[in-house]
């Protein structure tokens, strides 16, 4: 596994939760599984021996509850590395650029949407060099237009309508 920059040095966690990665991982998956069970609770289940729409989701959901609880309990009784710290800049800006693309590609067209998406994404890296990024974004936008619009004939709008 990659070592995050924010990872504290020095081995094991102490305290009640000795393997926090597993413990919180298991807890989160349990919550996810219970949520899926709740969301599917209105679906009809088994009728005699015929499966209803809700049978399989419930089966997989309960299995996941069980396995996730094992992971969480395991997180209490084994030693493990501490939680890795989350980056802020990279995830926020990178995901923002993805969302920006989704929001603008139809109204603004591929060219404008791509260029600004790439510029937002460029800021996600700590090594960003703005002059280089502007040129590179323009080059990539042109390459995408050439590849997807002229090369592959995807039906995308090029400019604002």
């Amino acid at each position: 596994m990659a070592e995050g920059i924010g990872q504290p040095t020095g081995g094991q966690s102490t305290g009640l939760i000795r393997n926090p990665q597993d413990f919180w991982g298991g807890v989160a998956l349990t919550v996810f599984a219970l949520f899926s069970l709740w969301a599917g609770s209105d679906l009809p289940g088994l009728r005699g021996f015929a499966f209803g729409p809700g049978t399989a989701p419930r089966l997989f959901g309960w299995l996941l509850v069980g396995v996730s609880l094992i992971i969480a309990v395991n997180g209490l009784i084994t030693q493990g590395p501490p939680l890795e710290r989350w980056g802020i800049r990279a995830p926020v800006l990178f995901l923002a650029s993805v969302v920006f693309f989704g929001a603008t590609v139809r109204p603004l067209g591929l060219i404008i949407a791509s260029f600004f998406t790439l510029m937002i994404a460029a800021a996600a890296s700590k090594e960003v060099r703005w002059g280089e990024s502007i040129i590179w974004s323009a080059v990539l936008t042109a390459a995408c237009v050439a590849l997807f619009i002229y090369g592959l004939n995807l039906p995308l709008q090029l400019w604002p309508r």
Partner: protein
Amino acid sequence: MWDLLNNLAFGISVAATPQNLLLCLIGALVGTLIGVLPGLGPVATIAMLLPITYGLPPVGALIMLAGIYYGAMYGGSTTAILVNIPGESASVVTTLDGHQMALQGRAGPALAISAIGSFFAGCVATVVIAAAAAPLTSIALLFGPAEYFSLMVLGLIFAVVLAKGSVVKAIAMILVGLVLSMVGSDLETGAGRLNFNIPELADGIGFVVIAMGVFGFAEVLRNLEVTHSRDIVQAKITGLMPTRDDLKAAAPAIGRGTILGSVLGILPGGGSVIAAFAAYTLEKKLAKDPRRFGRGAIEGVAAPETANNAASQTSFIPLLTLGIPPNPVMALMVGAMTIHGIVPGPQVMTKQPDLFWGMIASMWFGNLMLVIINLPLVGLWVRLLRVPYRLLYPMILIVCCIGVYSVNNAAADVYMTAAFALVGYWLVKHDFEPAPMLLGFVLGPLMEENLRRAMLIARGDWTVFLTRPISAGLLIVAAILLIIAVLPMIRKKRDEVFVEEG
């Protein structure tokens, strides 16, 4: 025998049309190009390049994807040898002796022997696939829903056993994939499930959305945090061709690697990793002087490279004959086939023989092209390795964005991909392996359908899975595998296999 030759000849006639040859070439080239980039293995590469096949006819699209797959595998070996970064898990073993050879100034012979070995393995594996396809397809037709269900359970257990890290966590990931695959409308009743009446979720979560979010984007997020230290072999690569002694030493290793890889590749669950490792271990055991291994022994490059290529090709067998993807790459191929309206399974061979045999024949062409493009282009790949990551990731971003958007022309898919990127990032932070999730997601609907039918036919009798002999056999194998995987002694061994991957 004549059938086999006729079929292969028919396949070659399909694959050798100028258009398909060109697609195969582009696939292999682009696959290598992307696969060489650090941090992009075959799964991410294929997920990223799926959209460029949307506009193609199905045969061409699959030929190109297969080319991308081999290209990415080969690119992974190139980085393993030159930079000591395994591009994909199957080339972990290659780093041991391959990088040592490179440090000794013998990167050329290492790359060449890896290409030659892969080509030889590819030739043999193509024939193996062609020969095994027909009999396996007829077995597949004997399978009822109970057998199919058990086979999929076995496949998933294989994936769990071979995934790195915790077995329980891998099982959890499969179940997450299964639960996610339930979103959308129920096939039999049409009832909306787990979709919260959001119209965008009515057809379920897109496969491309999950693949690109969890593999493409999450990978970028992870790489943005790591400062890349690359130990690139700076010395100019001279003397590309291996010497006569090299060939003499490598030939038997290539032969054994091919056999081992072809057999292990058929097993579901990620045979190429195990094949590479097993081939390396075998060579070390057979060697007169095992101490040479790890210090630049050419057999140590030839055997695992050959085996992993043979295995990655024979892993098409379960997909093409049974319609069951044995590993995440094949799961992506299922996704690609579905996009083109093909339902993978035994019926493909009879209903779309041009697709089936054309794809098999194209594997041979793909391998040939890899040898031809890679040997002269090694210098270019080395230069590509020096491209800084800050220029690389915007490229991945925009290709993935356009790709996801253009599946349905839906902005909602793009937003969901961003959400899955976050999920993938979280999984990495908690040491969960995302590959089994993708496999579970693809197999979910198939498992439900077969489980449902099996129960209906057996009138609700759960023991049907144990009373039908084939089904019982498959489940027993699955149970044994699972027990072996959890046993501490063998676990320790298994961790050693993956210890280099860190």
